[in-house]
């Protein structure tokens, strides 16, 4: 008999039980969870995924191809040796790049590709459509950018379904949402958003918070999403020559959402000062530091010169170190520990976690100077997590992954992965605002979302890879969490498929 704590480990910490998994946990579920924190397969290094650097390179090749196809526009000047010409070309490009903004449907997926995915899932064949003629080189490049993005979603989904270390995957998702980026923020967003998780989040998920913070704030995905790549110091060379100015978007969200929290004690002046400090944080492009194409760069010609003061401390650095020093202080600020602790507790415990849990996590964060291995371990050992509270409603992505794990959907194609998330309105990297997906129950317990979940379960039930009996599966997957009331409902199903639907839709499966 597997005890309750194993199921708490599987559902409340991890992403849901696979059949047979509960038996493998052994007598010490906490040790089982702690061992996951050092799992290295979660880096996803063994899949030939395209890096953000390669993605950005492809994007500029696409842009150039479009220009050559539309004779009205001049190709980018990438050969000029004159620095000012090249900077002028950089400035001229900004509007053009913005207008590559991907027009996504309500769920952040391109309609034609989604229709393809749906038909693939249903074993139907269809042809996609695009406004670009299929014989143009740019058409192939555009398709490649989408395909790379879907591959990335496919791999992270399949990994989440199959991994025996799903607690670590849950942590990856927590941090990825904490640093939310949007795939629809221009085609540059498409080629960088999903890769940011793999390049900046996964390597640090049990490392130091400051290292993850720096990796994220200097990643092209974040620099694009919150406009820092085109934020220019008014007194920098480019600011003076071309009349460009500050964009404080990234600075604001770094303080409000990534570190201190909205009541963390900063002012509008602090935002502006920090925004000045990180001017010049950009990435190599055809016109600026093209030798570092697609990689992070610090560009002095964009950087606002002079010292800045953030939260009563003056930073006199003259290059990238100015911003880095501020980030280090933000990461170490007591407000940051408090803010992160509260978010972790609400994510893993419930919408209204006990204050004692928040305090415990805050203390671990502070005492370890933001060591996320220590903070994650503190979550595991927190008694509040083991009291059998299953009130947290899974969001739609968590629900889908739990369902796919439960029935071993191990061979989904990338398109199928995108399709199942779209069916319940939570395609990864498609949330437009920087605060990440809604967190509270009220956002997910809506009539339209529940209805969509039932319809998806109904569909998945027809494709369950093994032919386990529904009640047996329920007992296996939920153990002592399963109530007699729900067990009776599943037993009374009029077909095996309906039994699976009832299992996945049961309150015990919807909540953790």
């Amino acid at each position, binding site marked *: 008999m597997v005890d309750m704590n194993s199921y708490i480990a599987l559902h409340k910490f991890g992403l849901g039980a696979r059949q047979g998994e509960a038996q493998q946990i052994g007598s010490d579920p906490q040790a089982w969870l702690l061992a996951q924190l050092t799992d290295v397969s979660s880096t996803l290094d063994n899949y030939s995924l395209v890096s953000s650097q390669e993605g950005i390179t492809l994007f500029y090749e696409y842009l150039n191809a479009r220009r050559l196809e539309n004779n*009205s526009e001049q190709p980018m000047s990438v050969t000029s040796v004159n620095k000012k010409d090249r900077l002028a070309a950089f400035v001229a490009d900004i509007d053009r790049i913005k207008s590559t903004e991907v027009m996504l449907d309500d769920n952040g997926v391109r309609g034609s590709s989604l229709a393809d995915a749906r038909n693939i899932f249903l074993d139907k064949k269809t042809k996609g459509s695009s406004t670009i003629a299929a014989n143009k080189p740019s058409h192939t490049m555009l398709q490649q950018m989408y395909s790379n993005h879907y591959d990335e979603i496919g791999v992270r989904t399949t990994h989440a379904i199959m991994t025996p270390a799903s607690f670590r995957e849950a942590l990856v998702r927590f941090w990825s949402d904490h640093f939310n980026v949007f795939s629809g923020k221009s085609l540059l967003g498409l080629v960088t958003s999903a890769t940011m998780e793999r390049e900046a989040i996964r390597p640090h998920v049990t490392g130091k918070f400051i290292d993850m913070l720096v990796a994220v704030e200097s990643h092209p995905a974040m620099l694009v999403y919150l406009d820092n790549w085109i934020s220019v110091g008014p007194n920098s060379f480019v600011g003076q020559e071309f009349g460009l100015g500050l964009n404080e978007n990234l600075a604001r969200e770094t303080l409000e959402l990534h570190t201190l929290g909205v009541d963390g004690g900063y002012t509008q002046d602090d935002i502006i000062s920090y925004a000045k400090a990180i001017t010049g944080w950009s990435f190599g492009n055809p016109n600026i530091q093209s030798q570092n194409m697609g990689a992070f760069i610090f560009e002095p010609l964009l950087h606002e010169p002079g010292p800045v003061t953030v939260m009563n401390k003056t930073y006199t650095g003259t290059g990238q170190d100015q911003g880095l020093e501020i980030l280090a202080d933000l990461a170490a600020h007591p407000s940051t520990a408090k803010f992160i602790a509260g978010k972790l507790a609400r994510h893993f415990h419930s919408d209204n976690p006990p204050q004692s849990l928040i305090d415990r996590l805050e203390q671990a964060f502070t005492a370890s100077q933001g060591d996320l291995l220590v903070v994650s371990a503190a979550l595991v050992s927190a008694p509040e997590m083991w009291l059998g509270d299953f009130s947290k409603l899974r969001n739609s992505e968590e629900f889908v992954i739990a369902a796919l794990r439960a029935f071993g959907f191990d061979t989904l194609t990338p398109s199928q992965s995108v399709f199942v998330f*779209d069916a319940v309105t939570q395609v990864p990297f498609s949330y437009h605002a920087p605060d990440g997906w809604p967190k509270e129950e009220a956002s997910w317990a809506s009539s*339209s*979302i529940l*209805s969509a979940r039932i319809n998806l379960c109904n569909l998945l039930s027809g494709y369950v890879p093994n032919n386990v009996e529904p009640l047996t599966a329920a007992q296996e997957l939920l153990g002592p969490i399963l109530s007699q009331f729900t067990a009776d409902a599943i037993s009374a199903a009029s077909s095996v498929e*309906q039994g699976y*639907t009832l299992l996945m*839709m049961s*309150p015990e499966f919807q909540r953790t």
Partner: protein
Amino acid sequence: MACNFSFNPTRRGLLQGAAGGMALALANARIGFSAAPSDQKLIVVILHGGMDGLNVVVPTFSDEYYAARPGIAIAPAGEPEGAIALTDGFGMHPAMPNLAQMYLKGEAAFLHAASAPYNQRSHFDGQDVLENGTTAAFGAQTGWLNRSIAVAPALPAGLGIGSTVTLVLTGEQPIASWAAPKVEQASTETVNKVLAMYGPDPVLQNALQGSIDIASIVGDLGNLGTGFEFSARAAGRIMSAPGGPGGCALAYGGWDTHANQGGASGTLAANLAQLDTALLALKEELGHQWSRTTVLVATEFGRTFNENGTGGTDHGVGGVSFLLGGAVRGRRILGDWPGLQSGQLYQNRDLLAANDLRALFKGVLRDHWGVDLSDLNNSVFPESSAIAPMENLLR
């Protein structure tokens, strides 16, 4: 059709001392109905992508317009494939005969050269500003329609159409939601068995009951039409049910016509025809309640004045908004017209946004829902007291 609505708007529930936490959960799932007999319907349609206003409400009096758009301009009324004559020298794109007729009958008015307070030409930020009601992207995490519901005296219930409720209607006020099914629907028997299983979980039970209630109002999906008409017809049916919601938001995309947008026919025309059909569908479904209905149609920006090199238009600033419904004082072009001559354009490329959309929205919210001016200036459109509501929009 027996519709058994529960009545659960949070605020009133709390005022009446109902169980606090439960009221929120229940209201989220169910269509609350307003007890007020004079239920005023307000529907907001957000056109994502930036609709090319100059080819929709066409300045057929302008030589500059025809010079700037040699390949895509809409001919004046009376010419082959020409516009439908409105007033003041403007013409309606020929793909929108129903809207033109509403205009001519006095049920529609158009605000041209209008925009939310945003001029940076990004869809993503522009949509955010249009819907969050502030002057900055991410300036608020909730939408102005949701915040209006919170302060409207009649406590209208909100209805979101679409699997993702568009930002303008999201926020603290709970709303009902309905979305076209993306995959084949589970059978009624299965849904009822799931519902029965939710006895011990009232939050899920009420959310699912709400879904069943709404589905029963919407009825046969087969006679809802296709495309955007499908959503509009569903919205109209749900709103016009006895005690149905008073506020609703829908989003419709596909307006980003950078290339080959066409003129009297083509990509833009096809989208306009869908929108035209959908607006008529709203009127048909609302039936006698149309006389108490106001529909606002807005987009995040207009497009460049000049046709571009690929037969399309790029992101601009000033666009056009529609105000229609039985409650509207129509047959009018509203606001200021900044002109299309050299020097009158914004940055020498776009129709100037001479009119702030917040003035239109505020005028409607004040006169249709009775929202107090101080609420409009502070909570609904924060720090907007400099933007006065437009007057005499409604009958």
